[in-house]
């Protein structure tokens, strides 16, 4: 398959470039950053990526995992493309680390941004984010009722989401294809905005990540209809008065066979040395073992996962291919 060939090629490229670059730098045994390290966020303030970056900053500083200070750089311009271009133009600078999500596959396709994640140095996948179908607390109570209401409505149901031709939009298109109901997709600038607009009844539903709708869910203003995953979320602590994350059925259980998970992964710019890469792999592995990380995962209902090295490359190639096929099928690939 072409997929595995590409993965091998990418891996080979990383391996081949390693000795040349390492010989160029001084023979430092274990590299460690001396300047402040930037965690580059490809989204606006307060979004899921930003919150995660702040959690990592706190986890690193509180547990003394690194001597150099950590700063969070928000580069959410142009729906996150700014961050991608910034990373791409920082070749060899091991003081910048990108907290990436599905935009690394989708943006180059939908907006013809000259970017390829293979130009960056993968560090590790640190979590997987879920998507949940939400509606207003006064709306339909189950997925079936919701779909029936959407079909019966005189004008298409309004579905809120973040950005255009991105994960939220793709999910909406696949829901249409699965059910035959029509939705008009409203792209907001952030998940938070999509959440309040749902509470205010300006949209009928949204497909926010758990973290984006957490507060309004706890306030009893929205209802979680189903989660777009093969299995239920594992956290069983009560979040609202009556429900835990685990109580949300999967969409498949409810007869809506759509699944999507989004990666949260760390990348260094291209052309860094293997020592530098190794330092960050180790750093983020330590981060995933901190109490802050574990607490955050549960609070935001993220799926903990840690992938590095060839395992990560394989995952990225497969995930890329999957996203590409979804985008193509949804008709979002720019000509």
């Amino acid at each position: 398959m072409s997929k595995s060939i590409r993965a091998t090629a990418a891996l080979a490229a990383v391996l081949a470039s390693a000795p040349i670059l390492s010989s160029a730098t001084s023979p430092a045994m274990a590299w460690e950053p001396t300047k402040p390290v930037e965690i580059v966020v490809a989204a606006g303030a307060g979004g899921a990526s930003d919150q995660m970056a702040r959690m990592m900053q706190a986890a690193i500083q509180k547990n003394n995992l690194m001597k150099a200070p950590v700063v969070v750089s928000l580069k959410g311009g142009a729906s996150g493309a700014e961050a991608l271009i910034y990373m791409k133009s920082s070749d060899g600078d091991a003081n910048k680390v990108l907290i990436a999500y599905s935009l690394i596959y989708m943006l180059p396709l939908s907006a013809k941004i000259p970017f390829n994640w293979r130009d960056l140095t993968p560090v590790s996948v640190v979590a997987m984010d879920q998507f949940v179908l939400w509606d207003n607390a006064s709306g339909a109570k189950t997925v079936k009722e919701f779909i029936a209401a959407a079909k019966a409505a005189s004008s298409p149901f309004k579905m809120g989401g973040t950005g255009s031709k991105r994960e939220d939009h793709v999910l909406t298109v696949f829901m249409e294809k699965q059910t035959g109901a029509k939705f008009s997709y409203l792209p907001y600038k952030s998940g938070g905005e999509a959440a309040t607009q749902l509470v205010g009844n300006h949209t009928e539903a949204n497909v926010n990540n758990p973290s984006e709708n957490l507060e309004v869910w706890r306030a009893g203003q929205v209802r979680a209809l189903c989660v777009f995953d093969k299995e239920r979320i594992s956290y069983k602590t009560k979040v609202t008065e009556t429900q835990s994350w685990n109580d949300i059925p999967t969409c498949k259980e409810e007869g809506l066979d759509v699944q999507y998970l989004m990666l949260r992964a760390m990348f260094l710019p291209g052309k860094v040395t293997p020592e530098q890469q190794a330092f960050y792999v180790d750093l983020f592995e330590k981060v995933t073992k901190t109490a802050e990380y574990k607490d955050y995962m549960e609070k935001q209902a993220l799926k903990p996962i840690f992938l590095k090295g060839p395992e990560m490359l394989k995952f990225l190639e497969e995930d890329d291919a999957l996203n590409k096929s979804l985008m193509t099928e949804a008709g979002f690939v720019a000509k």
Partner: protein
Amino acid sequence: MSNTDLEIIVEDPTAPEDDSPSVVSTHTIEIIVSLVLLALAIALGFDNWRTGIAWDSTGPQPGYFPFYLSVILGGASLYGLITTLFARSGGADTFVTRAQLRRVALVFVPTALFCLATQFLGIYVASFVLIAGFMRMVGKIALWKSLLTAFVFTAIMFVTFDVAFDVIMPKGPIESALGR
């Protein structure tokens, strides 16, 4: 609290003379600005027309608003151009006198050079050179005062942004030689 007013008197030995000849009239500049804006409106209008200016089922396409804004901008510029061309009274106003232009250039040229220097030397070195140079050359302030002021100001900026708050500023070869 005393009731005396603070009189702040600053000498200005290089002030522009009042009788300096005019370099260019406001009339001419208005025409130039109108033409530049018109050209900009056409360039942007064309780019947006290419992006798509139709009104489809989901409302206007991405180029719709900017396209019509370009049209409005172009129209207003054209209106300005025509009224300026036909107005007779506007011709005599001075946009800038020679002496004024010299003073403006005195600030603008160093500022532009400073921006260029920042790109290669980093912001701190460029700041030091700009402040010291400007005070010495333009303000005719004693060399030691100029150097000291520039150094103190740059050092405060460095400590505030780079040391205390970890705000990342552009840096050049000197900083990296010092290990920052």
